[in-house]
């Protein structure tokens, strides 16, 4: 059991690195889907007291949502908008990878100085959780497209969820399900919003949101109304 959990933890760390270095929106969506699948398998192996019905149901729900539904939603909004298919950056993939290496090292340190009163004994769990959360935050601030910010948000949520898997008793997994539903609604609404933004402004670059004001003024002038009156 311990071996399988380490393999899953290592593969989640690797998917974080892949997310940091991804060059295409489509591949970023696929990577986040793989990460979701790995996360979904995690509760089956972490809790040593065998498979309960509750755990299996949670695992299936998480795999369905994170591995299948979210990527499909994102793929659909990617398909429906006319945007560049490559990821545009504030911080390039190479520098992002270096940042990732630094974050992984420092989250190892955090794992040492912030030990949790846990009995599970998965020593890489805390660094992995920190790393995934910070990777998600970093993706949100360092990528230009709104779609990548959704993916960063998903990675962030994946980190939070893993934290719950490792350190909650199986009863409080109920909270996790509640959060999961919130995230589902969140991703759904964000997908719709991104679609509308891209249809209205022809792009989903977060850096160009300042043009929003000009666009609004132009609309008023076109309508022949003085904004003062």
């Amino acid at each position, binding site marked *: 059991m311990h071996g399988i959990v*380490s393999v899953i933890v290592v593969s989640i760390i690797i998917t974080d690195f892949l997310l940091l270095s991804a060059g295409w929106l489509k591949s970023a969506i696929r990577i986040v889907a793989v990460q979701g699948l790995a996360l979904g398998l995690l509760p089956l192996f972490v809790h040593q007291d065998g498979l309960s019905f509750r755990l299996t149901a949670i695992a299936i729900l998480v795999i369905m949502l994170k591995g299948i539904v979210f990527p499909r939603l994102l793929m659909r909004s990617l398909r429906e908008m006319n945007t560049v298919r490559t990821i545009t950056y504030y911080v390039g993939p190479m520098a992002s990878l270096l940042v990732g290496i630094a974050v*992984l090292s420092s989250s190892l340190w955090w794992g040492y100085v912030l030990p949790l009163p846990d009995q599970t004994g998965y020593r890489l769990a805390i*660094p992995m959780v920190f790393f995934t959360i910070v990777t998600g935050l970093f993706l949100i601030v360092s990528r230009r497209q709104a779609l990548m910010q959704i993916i960063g948000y998903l990675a962030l949520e994946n980190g939070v969820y893993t934290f719950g898997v490792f350190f909650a008793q199986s009863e409080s997994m109920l909270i996790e399900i509640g959060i999961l539903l919130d995230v589902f609604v969140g991703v759904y609404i964000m997908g719709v919003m991104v679609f509308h933004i891209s249809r209205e402004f022809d792009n989903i670059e977060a850096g160009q949101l300042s043009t929003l004001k000009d666009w609004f003024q132009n609309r008023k002038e076109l309508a022949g109304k003085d904004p003062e009156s």
Partner: protein
Amino acid sequence: MKINLLPIVHLVLAMVAAPLLSGIINRTKAIMAGRRGQPILQAYHDLFKLLRKGAVYSRTTSSLFRLGPIVNLAAIITGLLLVPFAGCPGFIAFDGDLVVLAYLLGLARFFVVSAALDTGSSFEGMGASREVMFSILVEPTLFLGLFSLSRLSHSLSLSGILYASGVTGWIIGAPALVAGTLFVLYLAENSRIPFDDPLTHLELTMIHEVMVLDHSGPDFGLVLYGSALKLWLFGALFVGVFSPDLTEAGVWIREGYALAGMVLLPIAVGIVESSMARLRLLKVPQLLVGAGALSLLATILVLG
């Protein structure tokens, strides 16, 4: 006193069989592409042809230019003395020889780069600059990978850390990550396809090949032979890491495993080369940093 003949046999084997590896790669690629391909011994023919020729030296070059291929070859042969093969320690084995190996590779690279700069050709300078830039990323990756293996096996010698990981080590996962890293380094250091296309002679894209454009005749032969030996050296490292625990097995099983590995690795490289295109030059450092991240992860797994 009983003299162990095996390291000598391995060294001779490496010196004789190394050019065969590129033949295997080329034959695999030819079969994948539906061609018959060049003879599997083509590299030997090329070497003999080049060694019979005379060399041409530009008047702008100094003795450093002539020294380049010789020191390169000498450093790589010395490196081969250190690398264990088939579970048997190398010709020379002592604590810390993995550092010596990394520095020997660095020495070889330094002289090839200096010889390239010595010609004063802008193309070769460009190649030298690329080579040095990539080696900045390759060397820490190699060191981190070897360090994690050395920590895992509590040994500072190459003969202690290779062929010793075994099944228990594989469960932790660090040797698997290091093996992945070493495969990337194998491709990068020997200028195979995701990094550099050994077939192209377009100056804008070449890395290793562009540095040796001015070498001719026997000098170029030495360069080719040196790169064949380097292919063998990295192959032996990879096969050693990617190995079950063979310390208990008999001599013939170990030899058979290592030789099979040395043949299967070029076939894998041929398949990789047939199935993907060269990376854009800008993407190469990214892949190398990714390999570095993997070996850092291996180190963390071992340290934690």
